[in-house]
C-alpha cells in the first residue's frame, strides 16, 4: 500500500516520466494496481483547473482508479460541531433525536471511512493487488484510509506497541498537520479554516472496530480517549507541530524562527503510556492475538455513536466501568 498526494496533471495534462516509472516499479510483471482517490470524480476533475488532478489512464495503464469521496476540511469540522451540539441539547425529544443525529452526518462519515479502508484492504488481501491512496494533499483522508486499512489487515497494528507505531508512521511522521487540525475542537467560536477532526474520525473508526471485534485489539477505549485528548492539548510533545521538519528544525512564527526541537525539549506520550503502571489501564482484558484480517460490517446497524466520547461528560459511565472491572476480574481470576 502506498500513499501520496495528487499528481500535478493540471489543465494541460502534464506528464511525468519519473512518476510513471515509480508507480511502474511497484507492480510486478502482469500485475495490476488500484488507485483509491479520496475525492469524488468531479472534485478530482476540478482540481485539474487548479494545477492538480488525477492519474490519466493512458499514462498509468496498469492502475485502475477508484473514487471514494471522503469528507475533510470545513464540512467535517461542521459535522463534528453539530454533533457535539446535538449531544449537549437536552431539549430534543426522542422523536427528533435520530433525524438530528442524521443531520450532523458524522456517522455517515464513519461509515464512508470504514468502507474505503475496507476497500483498500480488500484490494490487497482478496485481489492481491497493490494500492495507492491519495486525496489532494495526502495529509488527511489519505492517512485516514491507510492507517485504518492497516488496523484491519495487520494484527501487529492491533497490539498496543504496534498501534503506537502505526500512529507514529501514518499520522505523525506522515505529516498530518496536528497543530492546524486539532486547534480548538468543537466548542470554540473561532471557526479556523484549517481545523478538521480527521484524527478523531480515525479514532472513532478504530472504536467501531473494537466494538465489532472485542477480542482483537490489545488496547481499549481508554487509550482512544487519551489519544483524542492529547491530540488537542497535551503535556507531551508527541502531537506537536505539523510535520517532522517543524519538530526538528522549527518553524517561522511571525518573523522569528521558533526552534521547536521537540525531541530535546519535550517528553513523549508513548514513554509515559508504556510505563508498566500506566500501561495496564489501556489494555483490553479480552485481547487474544488474532492473526486474521478483521472485516467490519459497515451496515448502518453496525455503526454506533461513540457514547464514551460524545457523552463522556453528559452521562455517568459508572455502570459500564463496573462491567469492565468485572470483566477484568474474571479474566485475571483465571
Amino acid at each position: 500500500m502506498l500513499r501520496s498526494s495528487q499528481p500535478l496533471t493540471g489543465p494541460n495534462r502534464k506528464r511525468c516520466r519519473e512518476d510513471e516509472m515509480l508507480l511502474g516499479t511497484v507492480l510486478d510483471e502482469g500485475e495490476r494496481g488500484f488507485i483509491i482517490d479520496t475525492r469524488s470524480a468531479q472534485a478530482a476533475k476540478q482540481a485539474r483547473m487548479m494545477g492538480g488532478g488525477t492519474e490519466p489512464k493512458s499514462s498509468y495503464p496498469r492502475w485502475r482508479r477508484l473514487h471514494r469521496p471522503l469528507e475533510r476540511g470545513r464540512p467535517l469540522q461542521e459535522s463534528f460541531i453539530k454533533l457535539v451540539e446535538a449531544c449537549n441539547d437536552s431539549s430534543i425529544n426522542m422523536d427528533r433525536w435520530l433525524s438530528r443525529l442524521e443531520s450532523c452526518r458524522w456517522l455517515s462519515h464513519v461509515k464512508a471511512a470504514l468502507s474505503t479502508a475496507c476497500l483498500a484492504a480488500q484490494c490487497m488481501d482478496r485481489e492481491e493487488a497493490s494500492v495507492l491512496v491519495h486525496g489532494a494533499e495526502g495529509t488527511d483522508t489519505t492517512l485516514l484510509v491507510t492507517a485504518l486499512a492497516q488496523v484491519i489487515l495487520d494484527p501487529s497494528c492491533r497490539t498496543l506497541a504496534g498501534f503506537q507505531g502505526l500512529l507514529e508512521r501514518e499520522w505523525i511522521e506522515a505529516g498530518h498537520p496536528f497543530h492546524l487540525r486539532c486547534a480548538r475542537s468543537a466548542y470554540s467560536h473561532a471557526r479556523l479554516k484549517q481545523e478538521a477532526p480527521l484524527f478523531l474520525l480515525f479514532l472513532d473508526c478504530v472504536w467501531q472496530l473494537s466494538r465489532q471485534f472485542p477480542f482483537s485489539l490489545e488496547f481499549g477505549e481508554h487509550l482512544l480517549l487519551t489519544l483524542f485528548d492529547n491530540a488537542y492539548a497535551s503535556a507531551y510533545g508527541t502531537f506537536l507541530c505539523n510535520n517532522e521538519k517543524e519538530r526538528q528544525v522549527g518553524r517561522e512564527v511571525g518573523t522569528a524562527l521558533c526552534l521547536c526541537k521537540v525531541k530535546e525539549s519535550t517528553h513523549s506520550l508513548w514513554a509515559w503510556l508504556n510505563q508498566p503502571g500506566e500501561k495496564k489501564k489501556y489494555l483490553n482484558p479480552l485481547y487474544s492475538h488474532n492473526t486474521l484480517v478483521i472485516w467490519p460490517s459497515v451496515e448502518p446497524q453496525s455503526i454506533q455513536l461513540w457514547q464514551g466520547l460524545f457523552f463522556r461528560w453528559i452521562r455517568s459511565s459508572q455502570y459500564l466501568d463496573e462491567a469492565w472491572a468485572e470483566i477484568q476480574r474474571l479474566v485475571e481470576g483465571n
Partner: protein
Amino acid sequence: VENVRLLDRLSSRKSALGTLYLTATHVIFVENGSETRKETWVLHSQISSIEKQATTATGCPLLIRCKNFQVIQLVIPQERDCHDIYISLIRLARPVKYEELYCFSFNPKLDKEEREQGWKLVDLNEEYNRMGIPNNYWQISDVNRDYGVCDSYPTEVYIPKSATAHIIVGSSKFRSRRRFPALSYYCKDNNASICRSSQPLSGFSARCLEDEQMLQAIRKANPGSDFIYVVDTRPKLNAMANRAAGKGYENEDNYSNIKFQFIGIENIHVMRNSLQKMLEVCELKSPSMSDFLWGLENSGWLKHIKAIMDAGIFIAKAVAEEGVSVLVHCSDGWDRTAQVCSVASLLLDPYYRTMKGFMVLIEKDWVSFGHKFNHRYGNLDGDPKEISPVIDQFIECVWQLMEQFPCAFEFNERFLIHIQHHIYSCQFGNFLCNSQKERRELKIQERTYSLWAHLWKNRTDYLNPLYRSDHSQTQGTLHPQMAPCNFLYKFWSGMYNRFEKGLHPRQSVTDYLMAVKEETQQLEEELEVLGERLANLQKSQLNDNKFKSKQQDRSKQLGLSTSNNSLANTPQEYSNDLKSFPSRSPSQGDEEDSALILTQDNLKSSDPDLSANSDQESGVEDLSCRSPSGGGCLPSEDSGKDSDEAVFLAV
C-alpha cells in the same frame, strides 16, 4: 421440491441450492452437497407473511417473513411448484384449531412426571409468599374461583384485606371486561403496591360506590401514604374519547385521595404499524446511514420503547422513593398495563432480574393476568387487527436496561431472544390462548410442555457472566437515567437482524467470559483436590504418573483459545468495482470461511438459528458444545431428523 435456491439476505451473490421440504410443522431447506448439509428449519407458527414475487429468468421468488424476524428468500424453479408451496404455506401458517399447533406433537421424550415438574417450576403462590403475602394488608381471594367474576383473570387474585367479595364484584361490574383492581407487586419495605385493572366504565358522569371503595381499600393497605396514584397509560385524547363510549378514566373528584396521571403510550394499532415500518427499514438493501436513521425515526419504534420505559420508571419511583401505591390501567388492562407493571417490577426488585425471577414475572403479569397471547401473536388464524408486538416491546425494554446495566441481570441477551422466539413458536404450551381459563379448558399442562423447564435445563447458555448477586449494580432498585438520554436507546440488531450473521460480532464476549468463569471454577476445584492430595501424600503412596497425565488431559481440555481459525470472517461487499478485475474465484476464499463459521465450536445448543440442525424444534437430542474450549462436546450422528416426528411431504 428440488433445485430451490435460498438467497443470502445481505450478499446477493451468495445463494445456496438445495431441496425444500414441507412437513406438518416445519418448512425445511436442505442444502445440497456441502459437507455439513446445512439445514434451515422454520416452524409454520413463526411464519408471519408469505409473498410471491414476480417470476424472473432464474425462477419464482418466494419471500417468507417470520415473527422472529427471520426473512427467507427462496427461488423456486417452476411456477406451478411455487404456487403450490405458496398455497400450502398460507394454510399451514394459519391454523384453525389449537390441536394443529406444534406443542401438541412436540415430544422432548420426558415422562409424565417430568412434564408435570416442568409446569410446577414457576409457582405464583410461592411468588406472592416471597413478597410477604398474605399479611395484615393483603390477602388471597377465591372470589374468581370459577372465573365467575372475570373470565380473563386467574382463579387466585390478591386483594387488600379490607376489600370484601361484595366490593370486588361491584367494582368488576364497573370495569371494562370486568377486570377489577388486583395486586401485581407488593413492596414489603414500605407497603407500597402496584395494582392493575382496566378502565372504569365511568363515561361522563357514572359512579360506582364499590369501585371507589376498592381504590380506598388499596390506599388503606398502605398506611405510609394518604393517597394513591392512578396511572392511565393511554394518551389523554384516547382516554377522553373512550368516555363517549361509556368508559373513560377516574375522576379525581369522585375518588377520594387519588392523584391521577396520564402517561401517553400509543395503542396496539400504532405499535403494529411502528414495527412494520421498522422492519421495512431492516429490509432495505445497502441503506445509507441517512436512510437508516430517517427510517428508524419515522417508524417511531424507539420513541415507543422509551415511553414504556418512562412509565415504568415513574411507577418504580412512586413506589420506591415516595412510598405511594399505584393503580395502573389502560383500556382493557392487558397490554400497556402488563408492559408497564412488569418494567416497574423489574426496576424495583432484583429478584425479577434473576433467571427464575424473570420467568415468574412473565408468568405473573402476562400469563396469569390474561394477556391475549393468541390474539396478539396469532397462534391461530384470527383478526389481523389484534396482532401487535406488545410483549416484544417489553422484552426490548429489558434488553435496553441490560445494555445500560451490564452487571444487573443474571441472564443474557440470548435468554430474551429465545423467549421471544418461543412466544411465537407454539412449541411449548405456556403462551397459548387468551386466558388461564382457556388454557385450563384445553388441558394445556397435561398435553404440552413448559418452556420454563426447557430454558431452566439449559440455563448455563443463558447466564450473564458479569452478574454477581453481591455486586452493587444488582442490589436494590435500578435507576435508569431519564433525561437527557435519548441516545441511550439503541437499535436492537441482535433481535431485528438476528439472522444476518454478517452484522454481528463474530466473537461472543458473553460466551467467552462464561467459559473463563467455568474454567476458573474447575481450576479452583482442582486446586482444592490437589490440596487434599498433598495432605494425603504423607499418609499414602501416590502414583505420580497417573497424577501427571490427568493434569495434562485437563489442561488440554481447558485450554481457552479464541485465536483459532474458526473466527475467520468474510468481508461484505464493500464495492462493486472489483468484479470486473481479474481475481481469484470468490468461492475459493469464501467457502473456506463459511465452512469454518459453522464448525461445532460455534454451535450453541439451544439457539435455534445458529444450530444448523435446529434440533430444538424437532425435539431431538441436543447437538451441543458449551464452551469454546471444547469441553463437553456431544456431536450426534444423525442430522437432527427424528423419523417419528417429521412427516415428509416432498412436494
